């Protein structure tokens, strides 16, 4: 069993160290965000088509929120396909 302090430490370490490997910049993320979300909604391999996007979303909470909002809005209008 782990304490809440332990969980907090693990979460903080992840946020401090961020993702490993190549990631897009915030500007590149914004430029590709619509394409990435449309691929996700279509059930296509978005991460293969837009390498570095997923890592950036793991490291940048603001861009992740922007992504989640766009995905929710588009998916509301066009139900997601595929897995």
């Amino acid at each position, binding site marked *: 069993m782990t304490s809440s302090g332990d969980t*907090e430490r693990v979460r903080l370490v992840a946020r401090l160290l961020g993702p490993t490997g190549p990631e897009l910049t915030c500007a590149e993320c914004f430029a590709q965000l619509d394409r990435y979300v449309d691929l996700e909604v279509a059930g296509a391999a978005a991460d293969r088509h837009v390498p570095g996007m997923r890592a950036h979303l793991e490291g940048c909470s603001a861009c992740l929120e922007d992504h989640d909002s766009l995905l929710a809005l588009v998916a509301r209008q066009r139900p997601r396909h595929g897995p």
Partner: protein
Amino acid sequence: MPASTTRHAGRPSLDPESRRWLERLDPHSPGRDAAIQALHALLLDAARFEVRRRRAAFPHLRGDDFDDLAHQSADDALVAILRKLGDFRGDSRFTTWAYKFVLYEAAVKIRRRAWQGREVPLEPERWSVMTAGAATPHEDAETRELLAALRDAIRDDLSAHQREVLLAVAVGDVPIDVLAERLGTTRGALYKTIHDARRKLRGSLAARGLRAGTDTEGQR
């Protein structure tokens, strides 16, 4: 070659709906004003969607504040979209491309409004969770060593600016747009600072033989 085909020659994969939007928004289109009105209505609907999603997190903001934010977001996004219309390459549907502008505007405005008048913590309280150094019985030796090394690296290896920005955003949960506004810079510039700080920390840990991921590529 028909005029519309020539105009959209750089966007070969346009879907019919996106093509109609571009044709109607063309400066020479007789239906441009109506198309701009329709686009604004679409953006306002999207801004209200975003406001509804986020308003629960900001109970101190009033309903009027949120509707003002939605209108401001739609207005600002419309200006940006019309200015950047030539940048749309058809890699997505036109509406998805347009939505990202208004959602971005709404999100930034909501974050900044929520932090209006609040002080940005440069040494967040939650940092004490790690700096206290009081290991719990559940932590193994490797975790304790990693935490100690991370604390040292943050203190010794980062510049004061890197330390303040990383701790404020990653530990203090200060929205990066809010911090960017306070420091007179941009989200992208601050994220670069965070990215460089993280790379330095991972390098410091790796130099001590600790497993915390290795930095191989960095930002593109």
